[in-house]
């Protein structure tokens, strides 16, 4: 392709994402677009083809990004090149969403015809607006009996503020509205505006490790072009690599000679670690660099830390290998070895947020067949000692003696909560309860309010998001960024089981809440630790002072007194189940503690609400 051809090619490119609230049909719309552009043959078609990790399919969430090239023969007789860029759908990954939107000119906003506009619809629509994207509203599932497209149109106009009068009425399941949508993409999403003759400049919006090719970068070329043999430079860390392959995903990798302005594709350059290739970074050419990097680059740092321990101590090395393998693909995951008196050898791991933590845990258990104990998540605390030195801890067990502490500082975030105005009261009440400090509040329109609070990060990771959702019927959306450290009146609370401190259950709590939290944790442990053959006292303590206590009574009977006739298999299965359950428990002293108990520090509210 010469430069003139590249310029012509650029006019036919349409780059877009699909954004939606969970379950509104994003993946089904993507599937239909792929089918109708013949990108995937019917035979290859598998529902929700873009989500290729098992876990994604099962949880119905998108974790890694994908970009697919499709060819669409439009009614005007021309063939257009579409790049469909998939986005993850959770607040933990909002930075990645915003970077993938930055690679597009348009966004298809999918809204369920029955459910209407919901929290993630708002949050994602606003991310699209922030990135100056052309938004094409699609009202999906119009075949449902409860569909009310007119009401949903009104909601889109009033709550998001975009014209929805000719929103596409679709049913992705039935294939209705998809031809119309494809035409709209051609006519409403602008062609990319970059300059083929300018120095090469591209945005990294995803990176994946491949065993054979090293890191595979997903990139959007802004200006210029790149080909095999070029030396690229990553503008953030100045590292240089020689390009070994460029191409597009359609949806399998297809090599091309070049990627030029407007293109979305992949690039490999024998890069060994995804750590070098942070999402959001700008790539240029070493011998003719672009002047300025693209805006918006953020180094991703873990916000939440948790200890991960193999239930079977002999699996320590397996866990290390598994974490190393996951890290190749997950630049946000950090880990270092640590030891716990109760749990033995394990790793302190850093995550973006709780979902990220859950996903890593599940992948370790599923893909690497490891049984893990995770300790309650914690944040980084700054401890100022009496000699004015500073110590940073991310594990309550490392807390120095109370007498040597002058001050404890904890990270605060600026939390931006967007809600319909009916819920302002509950949101403010919740934020106050979580030690939040009110900053400001403004009306975005007649219905929606943007509330800003400074809140300790530890409260956010504890249960703020869940509480926020339940107090606002799921309408609130939350975005937060680290604001800095502030001194707080914090203490370390220990948990004693059968008279022994279990270091993995220690937590750092605010003094005013310590008593209440102690009671909650003790009662949560009482429900999660199964009754055993002896009575087990459970206590919460600050220093030497016991602030809450309870006993787990000894159980009296565990034997099957039922006649299964000759069905021995059934007896065996029951015993095997019991044994498997025991494998997921950790013996601390003589007490068997199940996996969930170590998380009960986090999930006390849930157990409380079950009781009510």
């Amino acid at each position: 392709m010469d430069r003139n051809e590249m310029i012509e090619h650029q006019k036919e490119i349409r780059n877009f994402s699909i954004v939606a609230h969970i379950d509104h049909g994003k993946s089904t719309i993507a599937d239909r677009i792929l089918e109708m552009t013949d990108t995937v043959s019917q035979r290859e078609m598998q529902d929700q083809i873009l989500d290729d990790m098992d876990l994604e399919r099962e949880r119905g969430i998108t974790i890694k990004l994908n970009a697919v090239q499709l060819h669409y023969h439009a009614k005007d007789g021309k063939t257009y090149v579409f790049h469909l860029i998939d986005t993850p759908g959770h607040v933990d990954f909002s930075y990645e969403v915003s970077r993938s939107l930055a690679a597009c000119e348009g966004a298809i906003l999918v809204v369920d015809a029955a459910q209407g506009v919901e929290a993630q619809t708002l949050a994602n629509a606003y991310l699209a607006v922030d990135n100056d994207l052309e938004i094409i509203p699609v009202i999906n599932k119009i075949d449902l009996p409860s569909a009310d497209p007119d009401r949903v149109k009104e909601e889109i106009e009033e709550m998001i503020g975009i014209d929805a009068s000719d929103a596409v009425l679709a049913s992705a399941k039935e294939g209705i509205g998809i031809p119309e949508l494809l035409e709209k993409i051609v006519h409403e999403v602008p062609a990319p505006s970059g300059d083929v003759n300018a120095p090469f400049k591209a945005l990294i919006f995803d990176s994946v490790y491949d065993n054979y090719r090293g890191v595979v970068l997903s990139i959007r070329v802004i200006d210029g072009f790149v080909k095999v043999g070029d030396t690229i430079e990553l503008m953030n860390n100045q590292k240089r690599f020689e390009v070994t392959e460029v191409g597009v995903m359609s949806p399998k990798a297809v090599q091309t000679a070049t990627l030029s302005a407007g293109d979305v594709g992949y690039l490999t350059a024998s890069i060994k670690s995804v750590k070098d290739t942070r999402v959001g970074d700008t790539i240029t050419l070493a011998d003719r660099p672009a002047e300025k990097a693209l805006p918006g680059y953020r180094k991703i740092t873990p916000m939440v830390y948790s200890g991960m321990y193999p239930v079977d101590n002999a699996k320590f090395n397996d866990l290390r290998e598994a974490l190393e393998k996951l890290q190749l693909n997950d630049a946000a995951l950090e880990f270092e070895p640590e030891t716990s008196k109760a749990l033995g050898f394990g790793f302190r791991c850093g995550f973006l947020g709780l979902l990220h933590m859950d996903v890593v845990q599940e992948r370790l258990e599923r893909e690497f067949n490891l049984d893990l104990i995770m300790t309650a998540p914690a944040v980084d605390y700054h401890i100022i000692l009496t000699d004015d030195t500073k110590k940073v801890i991310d594990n309550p067990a490392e807390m120095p003696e109370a007498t040597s502490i002058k001050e404890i500082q904890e990270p605060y975030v600026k939390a931006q909560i967007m809600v319909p105005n009916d819920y302002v009261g509950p949101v403010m009440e919740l934020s106050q309860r979580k030690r939040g400090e009110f900053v400001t509040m403004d009306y975005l329109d007649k219905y929606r309010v943007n509330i800003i609070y400074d809140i300790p990060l530890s409260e956010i990771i504890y249960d703020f998001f869940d509480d926020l959702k339940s107090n606002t019927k799921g309408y609130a959306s939350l975005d937060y960024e680290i604001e800095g450290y502030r001194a707080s009146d914090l203490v370390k609370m220990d948990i004693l089981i059968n008279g022994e401190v279990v270091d993995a259950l220690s937590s750092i709590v605010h003094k005013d809440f310590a008593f209440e939290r102690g009671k909650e944790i003790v009662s949560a442990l009482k429900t999660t630790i199964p009754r055993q053959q002896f009575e087990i006292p459970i206590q919460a303590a600050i220093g030497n002072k016991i602030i809450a206590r309870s006993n787990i009574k000894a159980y009296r009977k565990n034997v099957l007194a039922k006649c299964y006739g000759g069905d021995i298999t059934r007896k065996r299965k029951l015993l095997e189940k019991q044994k498997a359950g025991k494998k997921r428990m950790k013996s601390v002293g003589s007490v068997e503690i199940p996996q969930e108990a170590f998380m009960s520090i986090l999930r006390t509210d849930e157990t409380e609400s079950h009781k009510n």
Partner: protein
Amino acid sequence: MAAAYIHIPFCDFICYYCDFNKVFIEGQPVDEYIDLLLREIKMTMAHYRQEPIDTIYIGGGTPSSISPQQLEHLLSGIQKYLPVKSGGEFTIECNPNNLLDTTRLEVMRTYGVNRLSIGVQSFNDAVLKKIGRKHSAQDALTAIHNAHKVGFENISIDLIFRLPGQDTADFKQTLAQAIALDLPHYATYSLILERKTIFYNLQRQGRLHLPSEDAEADMYELAINEFSKHGLNQYEISNFAKPGKESKHNLMYWHNEHYFGFGAGAYGYLDRDRYHNNGPIQQYMAPLRKHKLPVFEHHLVPFSEQVEEEMFLGLRTNKGVSKQHFQDKYGYTIDEIYGDTVKNLIQRHLLVDVNGHICLTHDSRFFGNNVFAEFLLDDET
């Protein structure tokens, strides 16, 4: 030594706790079922002509729910194709409401049945109603009276504890009434919630209120004490008998021996093969109509599982597992296979060695499952 279990999957009422393979009898092809069941027995036994049958157990379902004519057809067929050797044990399960006259009892007696297992469950009418039984406490007494009249002496009754609406005092009353009958054998089971039962669904809706775990333990302990006071020795987790009146068929299971399984969903264990038949009645009958056996699944029991089963079944009996017998049967000592497991359990007072028999202690009988699970071998080792 050989044994046979025969399954009759029909019931004239469905109990709220039952998840065995059974259907409501009305409109069911009972006659054809019996014909094909006898065909299954005949076909199977053609391969085992020399095998004398020591024990037969007809269970269900409710074997007594079929008509006296059907019962006669069934039992005469069994007599023909599966004769019990003299001195053998031949048990049939009955519900009290089918024994309110002596018709069926006489048929049973005629064809060699010599032991009855009667589903009494409770002597409290309110409790019986709550668990879906369609007979009264008085019906149970009448049934036992009739059985005695026809000449049955070897009678066992089943009692269930931890039932909704039951408390320790009530169960104690039921035990007293049961023991007053002076029967040679009693079995008592704790209610276990199983999927696909009415109770399971009630439980999920929060509408089932069962006695606590502690109450369950109290009732179990009470049963053990009351029976033993009256000369009824516990010989297995759930079974109590006067000396010499232990059920040979039940002991055969706990001794991990071989048995034929006949009928829909029945389990059998022959050589190394644990097999079971198709459960649904039509699926059971279809292959038999074509003279094929209705086996749903075979499982060749590997050595490791045989050993595990020897232990977790044998430990259910009060006599426990004989170390010598184990070695004779498997060619290894228990310790050669389980290392220090037995020693450790003895140290923790969960097992005891009585004259070369490893058995549960009185206390550890309550925690049998914990001990049994220790005898499952790890996959990796």
